[in-house]
């Protein structure tokens, strides 16, 4: 039976070839949109590592240049220290910290180093001591920074579990030196591990992350760029103005922008999901077009084959047998198109073309796109095949 069906498909290879090609490209379209959607959804399910509720972010533009000398930088840090103190003394503020890179920021700092002969990449940020309190970071091993850490002869760092696993696997990372020692630089040593820190927010993939201790009493290359503060629940938006005026009063030369982290989160979501929604809408209409097209072509083709199908009916084939034949033929076409698509798509994880998407997400996208194509093409074939099976044998044979 199957062999016979293949023969039938082969006999109309030119028409069918074009249909297979169309299914192949539709498959690719569905795959791309589905994989991106699944990628975001998969990220959304992973732990975030911090809480954004009731956290406000003050973006601080210190009008810094990249040619500033140490004295200028030190003076700036002094002002920042004063700002932090003033802000913390306000009634609605529970705690405040300065950071180089804060959550939901697009840019950032990425560092690459070789550890045990392996390339390790991590995002990072320099933060002051209170950040763990502000963002509610969960320290799972070792400890967080302390003010007394300034006295250490090495630079303490806190890493997230992803980075710990990447570098040391199951070993205990506490106390270990990070990176190959360079005699000119102060070594980095791990003092603690936090559960997770996904700087990009809920939709970003899990990534290695590392905190360095940002000290306000000594200039370093870590430049604070924002103040994060935990406010009491229910703090009104009007407090923004009071806060801004206070900051501007202390540092009239700087620019400040106060925004609840919830707003930053919302705009990150919008920015990442808008292209997906736009692409998804276009893809939806493309598929609708393909579905209508396939439907029309199948219908026309079956009209063409009236005599063939009539002959089958006359020779005793039941209605459902004709019905099944048409559907199976369509399934065979779809299989060709989808397999072709799968062969192309599988190159992506195999050749590691898009590194940031996990193989599982690829697999899910592949399965989804396959299922969608089978559903689409059987739906398109259903009505024409019903029409074909309803043909009266006598009428069908007379048809010319």
């Amino acid at each position, binding site marked *: 039976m199957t062999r016979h069906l293949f023969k039938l498909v082969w006999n109309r290879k030119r028409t069918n070839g074009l*249909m297979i090609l169309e299914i192949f*490209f539709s498959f690719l379209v569905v795959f791309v949109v589905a994989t991106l959607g699944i990628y975001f959804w998969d990220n959304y399910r992973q732990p975030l590592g911090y809480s954004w509720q009731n956290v406000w972010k003050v973006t601080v533009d210190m*009008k810094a240049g990249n040619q500033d000398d140490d004295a200028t930088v030190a003076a700036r840090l002094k002002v920042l220290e004063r700002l932090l103190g003033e802000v913390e003394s306000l009634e609605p503020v529970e705690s405040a910290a300065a950071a180089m890179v804060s959550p939901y920021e697009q840019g950032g700092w990425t560092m690459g180093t070789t550890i045990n002969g392996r390339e390790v990449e991590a995002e990072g940020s320099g933060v002051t001591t209170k950040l763990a309190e502000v963002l509610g970071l969960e320290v799972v091993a070792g400890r967080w920074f302390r003010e007394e850490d300034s006295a250490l002869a090495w630079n303490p760092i806190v890493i997230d579990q992803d980075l710990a696993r990447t570098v040391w696997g199951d070993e205990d990372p506490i106390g270990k030196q990070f990176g190959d020692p360079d005699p000119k630089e102060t070594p980095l040593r791990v003092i603690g591990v936090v559960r997770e820190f996904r700087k990009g927010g809920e939709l970003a993939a899990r990534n290695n992350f590392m905190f360095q201790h940002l000290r306000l009493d000594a200039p370093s290359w870590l430049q604070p760029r924002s103040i994060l503060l935990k406010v009491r629940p229910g703090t009104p938006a009007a407090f923004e103005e009071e806060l801004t005026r206070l900051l501007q009063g202390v540092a009239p030369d700087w*620019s400040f922008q106060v925004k609840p982290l919830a707003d930053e989160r919302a705009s990150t979501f919008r920015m990442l999901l808008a292209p997906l929604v736009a692409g998804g809408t276009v893809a939806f209409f493309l598929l609708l077009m393909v579905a209508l*097209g396939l439907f*029309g072509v199948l219908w026309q083709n079956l009209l063409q084959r009236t005599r063939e199908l009539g002959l089958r009916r006359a020779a005793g084939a039941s209605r459902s047998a004709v019905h099944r034949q048409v559907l199976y033929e369509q399934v065979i076409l779809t299989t060709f198109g989808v397999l072709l698509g799968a062969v192309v798509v599988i190159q992506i994880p195999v050749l590691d073309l898009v590194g940031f998407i996990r193989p599982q997400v690829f697999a899910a996208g592949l399965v989804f796109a396959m299922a969608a194509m089978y559903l689409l093409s059987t739906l398109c074939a259903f009505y024409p095949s019903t029409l074909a099976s309803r043909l009266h044998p006598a009428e069908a044979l007379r048809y010319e």
Partner: protein
Amino acid sequence: MIRNYLKVALKVLARRKFFTFISLFGISVTMLVLLVATAIFDHSLAPQAPETRSERTLGIYRLTMRGPENTQSSDPGYGFLDRYARPLAKLPGVEKVSLLSSAQPAVSYVGGKKIESQLRHTDGEFWQIMEFELLEGGPFTVEDERDARFVAVINETTRRRFFDGQPAAGRTIEVDGQRFRVVGVVRDVPMLRFSSSADVWVPISTSKSASYKEQWMGGFEGLILARDRADLPAIKAELQSLLREAEHHLPDPKRYKTLTAGADTLFEGLVHKVGLGDSDKLRPAAVKAVLFLLMLLFMLLPTLNLVNINLSRILDRASEIGVRKAFGASSRTLVGQFVVENLVLTLLGAMTGLLLAIPVLAALNASGVLAYARLGLNLRVFLYGLAMAIFFGVLSGVYPAWRMSKLHPVQALRGRSV
């Protein structure tokens, strides 16, 4: 002859309404997407107020410093532009040089309400290069900038936010903790126009700190208005020789050795802004080729779809083709006829797409996704759309037409399949 073809084409379309609907649906959706993309491109790049002279304006949008181990790339700083872009004004072909900052977010509070604006610092020449549509007052001048007067030009939306749409000239606004006297109000400029758009424009010299004056990297761009388009190559060349000179005075000569920048047209600038390639490596022709390929790629699926539909429609007309062949019509004539028929179909679809594009663009404008955008259809967009529709029509018509012409007359007369 063509008239006959058109007559037949319309008859055929009217005969099988369902097929005509399917084809038109696919074509109009395809054209709709392409038209919206074209309208956005046109809105970002075509000369329009205030960038009416963009055809003879060049911009320095990106500066890259390279050393053996370090690379730094960003928009240029004021210090660099002041020293090495301003001298371009001495060239005979240059009318004006202007330095301006990129738009930065700035916050104001009015009556307990928060207003977020895009603030841009410019010099006086900026207002001579650009032709803003003034609603009130006028721009600030070169003298205002020199004397660091706290004056501002605001756009229509800012006037509405701060003053409820009442006349604003002479009144004061507070932005980012500084107070400015409003001297002019201009019409909103779409944010897509990255080197003119803002909510509030103020003189560079009113910046909170003077540190920008020494910076080589970051925060600014330079605009050069040429007298004529023919002067552009000379300006580009002169900038390169100024860069070679600047390389002897780099701020951090130990880490950085070379400088790369270009005097870019708007299109080149846009390509740089979205982060594709460095000034020296970028070839606009290559980017245009990539855009064309993207269009082809997008058309691929609709084309296949239309080819499939067309092929199955031919079978419908086998006897007609048979008769024409039997009476001596050549293959070429038949191909011509079918391509014309397909063109009629695609142009009809393109018209539908055009009509659909009007509400879609209006909805995009209203949604505020692209701030201050006034996307619409103009003659340029229409002509691009027409060209794309014809391309699409030929692309999807040729193969079915060829297959049709290959039909054997005897077979065709009997109504056999292709």
